[in-house]
C-alpha cells in the first residue's frame, strides 16, 4: 500500500517509537503506584509496534504473527505459574516477592511480575489483532 518514497513517515516513526515505547513500559512498571497497569501499558506498547508496522509498509505478517503468539504464550505461562504459586504456596511467594514499602518501585509483591506478564500479552495480542484485521482483503 505504501510506496518507498515516504521518507518523512519513516523518519518520524523512527523518532517517535522509542518515546511511545518508554511511556508504555513506564505505565506497565508503575501499575501498582500510578493509575495504569498491565492492560493500559500493553496497549501503549502495542501502539508503538503498530506505528512501526504502518510506517514500514503493511507487508505479509505470517511468521511475525507466530513469533508474537509465541511471546504471548510464554508470558501467559509465566503468569499462570506465578498465579498458581501464589494460590498454593502463599507464604513462599511473600518471601520470594516481598511486599516492600508501599510507595517505591519494587514494592507490589507479586503485582509487578504479573503486570509485566500481562503487559507483554496485551501488547502481542493487540499487535496481532491489528496485523490480521488491518491486512487488505
Amino acid at each position, binding site marked *: 500500500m505504501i510506496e518507498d518514497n515516504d521518507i518523512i513517515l519513516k523518519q518520524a516513526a523512527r523518532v517517535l517509537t522509542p518515546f511511545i515505547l518508554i511511556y508504555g513500559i513506564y505505565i506497565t512498571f508503575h*501499575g*501498582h*503506584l*500510578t*493509575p*495504569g*497497569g498491565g492492560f493500559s501499558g500493553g496497549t501503549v506498547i502495542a501502539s508503538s509496534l503498530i506505528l512501526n508496522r504502518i510506517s514500514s509498509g503493511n507487508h*505479509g*505478517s*505470517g511468521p511475525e*504473527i507466530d513469533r508474537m*503468539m509465541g511471546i*504471548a*504464550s510464554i508470558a*501467559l505461562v509465566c*503468569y*499462570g505459574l506465578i*498465579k498458581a504459586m*501464589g494460590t498454593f504456596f502463599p507464604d513462599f511467594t511473600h518471601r520470594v516477592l516481598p*511486599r*516492600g*514499602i*508501599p*510507595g517505591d518501585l519494587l*514494592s*507490589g*509483591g*507479586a*503485582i509487578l511480575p*504479573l*503486570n509485566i*506478564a*500481562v503487559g507483554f*500479552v*496485551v501488547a*502481542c*495480542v493487540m499487535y*496481532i*489483532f491489528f496485523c*490480521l*484485521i488491518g*491486512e487488505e482483503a
Partner: protein
Amino acid sequence: MKRITVGLLLGAMLVVLLSTVSEMPQFGSPSNPTHNYISSRYVGKSALETGAVNVVTGIILDYRAFDTFGEATVIFVAALAVISVLARGGRSGD
C-alpha cells in the same frame, strides 16, 4: 408494521427499566449499600496487605486475582480465534 411493534416493545421495556431506576439507591450518596465494610477494607488495608498504592491494581492483581487470570485467558483465546479465522493460507473457502 414491524417497526411499530418493535417501538411498542422497546417503550414497554423502557418503562419497566425506568420504574426500577426510581427505586434504586441514590446516585453518589455515601450511604449506598455498595460502600460497606468490603470497599472500606480494600481502601484501608491495601497498602499494608498488598503493598500497592493504586488500590484498583491491588484489587485486580491480589484480592481478586482469579478474575484477572480468567481475563488474560479471554485475550489469549480471542487472539487464537482471530488467527484461526484470518491467518494467511485461509483461502480454502468452501
